[in-house]
C-alpha cells in the first residue's frame, strides 16, 4: 500500500463532482423548503401543509407497501425458480439466456404493455381468466383502488422476478458440489437438503439481493407513471410520483421540496438502520 499523495485527487475529483452536482443541490433544496414561494421564511409551514394532505400519507405508505411487497415476492419466487432452473440440466443454459429479456425491457415500455394486457374490455388477462372460468365478469384491474394496487405490484414482480432469479441462480451454482454428494450419501431427503444446506449457504446472497431489489423498488417512478400515472385517484402514487406532481406539474415548488426532504430523511433512516449494515459488510472487506 502506497502513501496517499497527489493521487488522492483520483478519489476527490469524482467525489467532488458528485457532491457538488447532486448532494449540494439536495441540501440547498432542503433549505428552500423552509421558505414560501415569495421567499419569506415560514419555518415548518410547508411541512404542516404536507402533513395535512391526505395524498401525502397515502403515497408514503403505498411506496413502502409497494417496495416491501414486491421485494418479498420477488425474492421468494426468485429463490424457488432459481432452484428449479438449477435442476434443469442442459435447459439451465437456455434459461440463463432468456432470463435477461424481461430485465432489458424498460419499465416505461413495460407499463405501456401492461396497459394493453390488463385492459378491462380488450385485455388478454381478462380473456384468459374468462376462458379458464376463474372469473365471471370482466375486472377493471386498474380502475379501482383495491385492484390497482395489487396489480401494480404484480406487474413489477412479473418483470423483475427474473432478475432476482438470475442472482440466486448464479449464487447457487457457486455452492460446492461435494456438500450435495455428501448429503446424498448420508441419505438426506430433498427437503432436508433445501433447509439444511442450500438455504443457510444462500443467506448472504439473499440478503444482498433483498437490499438491491429494495433500493430499486423505492425508486419506483417509470412503470407506475406509464401504467396508471398514480391513479385511480392517488391510490397508486409513489413518493417519486408525488414529488413530480407537486413540484413540477402543479408548480408548488416549496411543497415539493418539503416532500423531498421528508422522503430523503425516511430513506436515509432506512439505509442507516437496515440496509447500510448489509452494504457496508459487502463493501468493506479490507478497510
Amino acid at each position: 500500500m502506497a502513501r496517499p499523495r497527489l493521487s488522492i485527487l483520483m478519489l476527490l475529483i469524482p467525489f467532488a463532482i458528485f457532491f457538488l452536482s447532486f448532494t449540494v443541490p439536495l441540501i440547498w433544496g432542503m433549505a428552500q423548503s423552509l421558505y414560501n414561494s415569495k421567499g419569506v421564511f415560514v419555518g415548518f409551514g410547508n411541512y404542516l401543509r404536507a402533513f395535512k394532505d391526505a395524498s401525502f400519507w397515502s403515497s408514503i405508505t403505498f411506496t413502502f407497501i409497494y417496495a416491501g411487497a414486491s421485494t418479498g415476492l420477488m425474492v421468494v419466487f426468485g429463490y424457488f425458480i432459481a432452484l428449479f432452473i438449477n435442476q434443469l440440466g442442459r435447459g439451465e443454459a437456455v434459461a440463463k439466456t432468456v432470463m435477461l429479456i424481461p430485465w432489458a425491457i424498460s419499465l416505461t415500455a413495460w407499463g405501456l404493455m401492461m396497459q394493453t394486457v390488463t385492459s378491462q374490455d380488450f385485455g388478454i388477462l381478462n380473456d384468459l381468466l374468462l376462458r379458464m372460468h376463474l372469473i365471471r365478469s370482466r375486472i377493471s384491474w386498474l380502475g379501482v383502488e383495491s385492484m390497482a394496487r395489487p396489480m401494480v405490484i404484480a406487474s413489477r414482480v412479473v418483470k423483475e422476478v427474473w432478475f432476482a432469479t438470475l442472482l440466486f441462480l448464479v449464487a447457487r451454482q457457486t455452492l460446492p458440489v461435494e456438500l450435495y454428494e455428501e448429503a446424498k450419501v448420508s441419505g438426506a431427503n430433498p427437503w432436508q437438503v433445501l433447509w439444511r444446506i442450500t438455504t443457510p449457504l444462500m443467506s448472504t446472497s439473499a440478503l444482498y439481493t433483498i437490499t438491491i431489489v429494495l433500493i430499486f423498488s423505492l425508486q419506483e417512478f417509470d412503470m407506475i407513471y406509464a401504467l396508471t400515472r398514480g391513479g385511480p385517484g392517488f391510490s397508486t402514487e409513489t413518493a417519486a410520483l408525488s414529488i413530480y406532481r407537486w413540484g413540477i406539474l402543479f408548480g408548488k415548488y416549496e411543497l415539493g421540496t418539503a416532500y423531498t426532504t421528508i422522503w430523503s430523511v425516511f430513506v436515509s433512516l432506512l439505509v442507516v438502520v437496515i440496509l447500510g449494515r448489509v452494504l457496508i459488510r459487502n463493501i468493506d472487506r479490507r478497510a
Partner: protein
Amino acid sequence: MSTTVMKEPYLFRRPRRFKWSTVLKILGTLIVILGTMWPLYWIANVSLLPETQVFKAKPHYFPPLDLISIKAYVRIFAEFTIGRYLFNSFFICTIATAVTLAFSFSMAYYLAKFTFRFKRFFFYFIIWSLSLPWVVYVLPIFRIVDFFHLFDTHILMIMLFGFSGIPMFAWFALPYLQDFPDEMIDAARIDGASELAILMRIVAPALNNVVIALFLIRFIFAYNSLLYPLIFSVDKAKMIMPVILDFPTPYEMPFAKMSAGGIISVVPIILLVIIFQRYIVSGLTGRTLK
C-alpha cells in the same frame, strides 16, 4: 472367403432409454422460456395488428396473416422524428456512460488500493447516495438548470446521467479492484508510473471484461430510465423513453401504436443483451459473489 463382420456402432446404437426426467426437464425449460418471453411476444403481436383489430373482446393471440399490418410503425415514423430521439438516446447514454465509468473506476481504484483516514466516511457516503432515490435531486436541480439556461440541452443530459451513476458504479467496480493483485501495481510503481497511468494502462486493460460489463449495464440503465429525460428535456435533447409515453393521449388509447413504440425503443437493448449476454450476467451478479 469369409466376410468380416463389421461392427457399426454408430448406425446400430441402442436407442436411448426414454426417461421421464428428461421430459420434465424439457417441459420446465419451456415454462421458463414462456415466462420470460411472453411480454416481448405480446408487444410484438399487438404492434402488428391494425388499430381496429386490437379493440376486440376476444383478443388475437397471434396476428392473423391476412391482417398483419405495419401501419402503427409507419404512423410513428411519420408523426415523430424517431430517428433523432433514438440518436439522442444513444449519443447521450454513450458519452454519459464513459464519463461515469472513468470517474467511478478512478474512485474505486483509490478506495481499494490506498489506506488513509476517513476511508469509512467515503464508504458510507457511497452507500447513502446510491440508496437515495433519484427523485430527491429533481426539484433543486430543476431550479439550478433554469438559472443556467441549460434546460433541454444535450450537455445537461450528459451531466445528469454521467454524474448520477458515480457512487453506484464505484460500488459495482470496487470488489474487482480489491481483488486485483497488488504485485502488478507495485511493479509498475517501481518503474515510475503514476497512479492514473497504472489505472489506465495496467488495471483497466486487465479488467477488460469488467469494464465492458459495467459499461453495458450503465448504458442500459441510462437508456431505460424515464425520470430525468421526462423532466429535463422537451424537444431538442428528448430521449426515446418519454417519446413513447406521448402516444397514449387523453382522447385516444392506441394500443398498436403504443406497442410499436415499445418495440422500437426496446429492440436495440434486446440486441445488446443477446449479443453481450455473458458480460451482462457476470457484471450483474459479480456483486453477489464477491
